[in-house]
């Protein structure tokens, strides 16, 4: 057999035993472009479409556990977007309805494109990625899984099975710049999480480096300027300084999609807007409750 369509992870692992050189296929939105353009000629394929363990999501205490086979359309479901709003926002910017119906979270991670839209969100949430093989499971942070453009630390026979992220962590925003609203691969994208309870700010940048970048200096700076009791930014000029530090954290390149200069500018604008939006929404919520 050359194309495996396993119903379970055990069957998928078995397929790898039979065909160690088999390639993994999730939603196909990256894989099939390479096949169609003759850049990839798989000797055999393990399709994950029907693997039950990779479907759906569940709550586990303070965490949400997402099956790696969840599509971007599924990640936009209102029941889930309340728990992981940044991921829902990012998912809605992916491709088109056709792409979102096919492309999966696990596939986005496995492809490990610097422009992958879910990656900055998972980084900002310090999500855990669980990978499995017939030898067992291991848990990784994003920067331990994705180590370069299209490079992961997945071992042969290993499959990304689930993603664990904190539910309803603070306020979240995802912003992305491209040439149009739909069908766009990010020129730059930013995920920002303001964790009111934990009194921390997390800011992750995509498409401005070989892998997702956490703007740690910017995070620490703005965390020190937010008044965590009133949940406001008393000195508004701090937002601009935050954006400057985000720009400084970016390591963009010139390529066919944009220039390094523009990308650096764009992450600054996106992070500034994301912060302003979170603070404004939070102020409106507070006013709404008070009135």
């Amino acid at each position, binding site marked *: 057999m050359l194309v495996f369509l396993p119903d379970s992870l055990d069957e998928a692992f078995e397929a790898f035993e039979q065909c160690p050189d088999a390639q993994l296929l999730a939603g196909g939105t990256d894989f099939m472009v390479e096949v169609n353009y003759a850049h990839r000629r798989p*000797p055999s394929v393990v399709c994950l479409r029907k693997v039950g363990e990779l479907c759906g999501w569940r709550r586990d205490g303070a965490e949400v556990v997402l099956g790696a086979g969840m599509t971007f359309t599924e990640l936009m479901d209102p029941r889930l977007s309340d728990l992981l709003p940044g991921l829902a926002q990012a998912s809605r910017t992916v491709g088109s309805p056709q792409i979102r119906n096919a492309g999966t979270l696990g596939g986005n991670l496995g492809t490990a494109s610097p422009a992958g839209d879910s990656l900055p969100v998972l980084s900002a949430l310090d999500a855990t990625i669980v990978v499995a093989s017939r030898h067992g499971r291991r848990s990784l942070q994003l920067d331990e899984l994705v180590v370069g453009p299209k490079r992961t630390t997945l071992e042969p026979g290993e499959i990304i099975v689930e993603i664990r992220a904190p539910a309803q962590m603070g306020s979240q925003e995802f912003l992305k710049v491209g040439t149009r609203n739909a069908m766009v691969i990010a020129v730059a994208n930013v995920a920002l999480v303001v964790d009111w309870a934990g009194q921390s700010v997390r800011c992750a940048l995509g498409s401005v480096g070989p892998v997702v970048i956490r703007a740690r200096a910017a995070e620490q700076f703005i965390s020190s300027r937010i008044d965590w009791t009133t949940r406001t930014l008393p000195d508004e000029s701090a937002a601009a300084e935050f954006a400057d530090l985000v720009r400084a954290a970016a390591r963009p390149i010139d390529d066919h999609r944009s220039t390094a200069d523009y990308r650096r500018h764009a992450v600054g604008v996106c992070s500034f807007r994301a912060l302003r939006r979170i603070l404004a929404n939070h102020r409106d919520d507070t006013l709404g409750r008070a009135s």
Partner: protein
Amino acid sequence: MSELINYRLHVNGVEHEVADAWLGESLLYVLRERLGLPGSKNACLQGECGSCSVLMDGKVVCSCMVLAASAVGADIVTVEGLSPGEQDLSDIQAAFLAEGGVQCGFCTPGLVVSVHDLLEHNPDPTELEVREAISGNLCRCTGYGRILAAVRATQESRQG
């Protein structure tokens, strides 16, 4: 050349045998070249244009991005399966013609599939929802105004 494979696909309510196929063939290729269903159009082969849109288990996808052999067991509906008969048009197709939403016609089958899917799930979409629903279908002739008019006309006629 690698080994060839055989499998069955369920398309428009009919089981089809696919014999001696290369494993990397896309669903679009198999539909057009092996099953005699050329309604789904072949243009970009990278999910950009939407002209190959089909329904797979009730969800609109680009058939060029589906590995055909991975679609075994799925319920596939192409544009051919959306019209009541070979010579008859669906109300969406008729509205596209009546409103001038068809010019060169290449994007039309994909748009018909996307609009069908939208109206199945959301019978009364706003214009913004229509625009988002067809954002994965490129049309280089109409400027989309007449396509939006066709969707609106279908919506209105279905509501009676």
